């Protein structure tokens, strides 16, 4: 069973090393919420990630059902919270919208995804 103890020790070492390391970004929340229906879209789309985002190499596109861009400005990362990404939106009429995001973290890991939301006054 000596080998089993060594196995468990090695696993414990890697587990301890994991504390504080970076990881791939997960989309933790969004406003408007993923897949939601809202009465009025907020003026800014907000995405909260699990890791710090590198804004210069990240992108977020918001399109309507016809594929037209409805985001109204460049992506911003909060200086006090670089896990939060914001993109200004135009005034959105009723309809379906799609958000496609691709973020690169400060440690160069990349993650991407997309989701929809609906505006129904």
């Amino acid at each position, binding site marked *: 069973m000596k*080998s*089993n103890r060594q*196995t*468990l020790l*090695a*696993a414990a070492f*890697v*587990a301890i*090393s*994991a504390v504080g*390391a*970076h*990881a*791939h970004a*997960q*989309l933790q*929340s*969004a406003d408007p*919420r*993923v*897949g*939601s229906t809202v009465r009025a879209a907020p003026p800014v789309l907000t995405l909260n990630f*699990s890791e710090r985002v*590198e*804004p*210069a*190499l*990240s*992108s*977020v*596109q918001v399109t309507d059902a016809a594929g037209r861009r409805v*985001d*109204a*400005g*460049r*992506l911003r990362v909060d200086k006090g919270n670089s896990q939060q990404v914001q*993109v200004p939106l135009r005034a959105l009429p009723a309809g379906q919208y799609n958000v*496609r995001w*691709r973020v*690169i973290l400060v*440690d*160069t*890991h*990349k*993650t*991407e*995804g*997309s*989701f*929809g939301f609906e505006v129904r006054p």
Partner: protein
Amino acid sequence: MSTSTLRHALHGGLAQPSKRANLAAVAAVAFTVHGASPAAAHCFAGARFFPATLTVDDPCVADELSLPTISSFKTGDIPAHRELDISGEFSKRITEDFGVSVGRTYTRLWVPGGPGAHGWQNLETTFKYQFLTWPQSELVLSAGVSIEWGRTGNASVGAEKFHTVTPMLFAGKGFGDLPSSLGFLRPFAVTGQVGYAIPTWRRTLTISSIDLDTGEVDFDEERHPHFLQYGGSIQFSMPYLKANVVDLGLPDVFNRMVPLVEASFRTPVRNVVTTGNTLDETNRTTGTVNSGLIYVADKFQIGAEAIIPINRASGKGVGWVAQLHFYLDDIFPTTIGRPIIPISARIGQ
């Protein structure tokens, strides 16, 4: 960073192109100076993350460590033996697309109330090349070869004296490209693998009896068959559901779960008849269907599954397997979590 990647990054949200381009260029230079390109280890295809499955191999090349994987089940022998396996596997990317895995298993075998044996199984090495990644279709294809090195384990637990070479194909497909009207099917994904195991010995002869009068020797012949090995998984990704389909507002612990069913089979297809056995006895497909759950944390995952044999030759009763798996590219992103040579020739990048 590739030109196309930079172009794609620049494409989104450009209200002030020149200023944004300058920022991107500075960042790109900074990444270049550090010798890094956007890393996509783990097993990603677009928005799809394929977790490391416990029974069949995931379709990607990655820097990862499965330690330990522990399984307990009753074998297909008569009477059935109880088998406890404790294994570890270390996978390392040589380039972005090509990697090697080394695995070892410690086995304890015993009959309840009877004798037992313990020791190492043969060392296994797998070379894998991830030749296609198609993000839009969440499709990954890889090819590889696995080698079980003979005489590196203990015969008392069944380790063979010959090598076994298994060319393999791996695939993973997520259903995120289904239309939004089929939203709740989009978190599903399937993975699969197929291989053809070729032992380097055709047979083993052992002396069964010697006639002391005539000096004649009788042998038992044990043939070593070629096996077709195949299996796959079907999985429902709660992380995908939350991030790409609908956020149901569930507690975070549920949003990190991937329920799945795996199946793994092997069928002898050549060189199957052995002394004392009929073709029917030896030409039987064996395998298990395993149902369980993987919890995906930021830098590691934990999985557990029930092992259900498909017939008596595959085992007796329900066993279990559990695994702790580390994402080394996240834990050690600047050292052993990076490919040794950071180049990529993958289709679809």
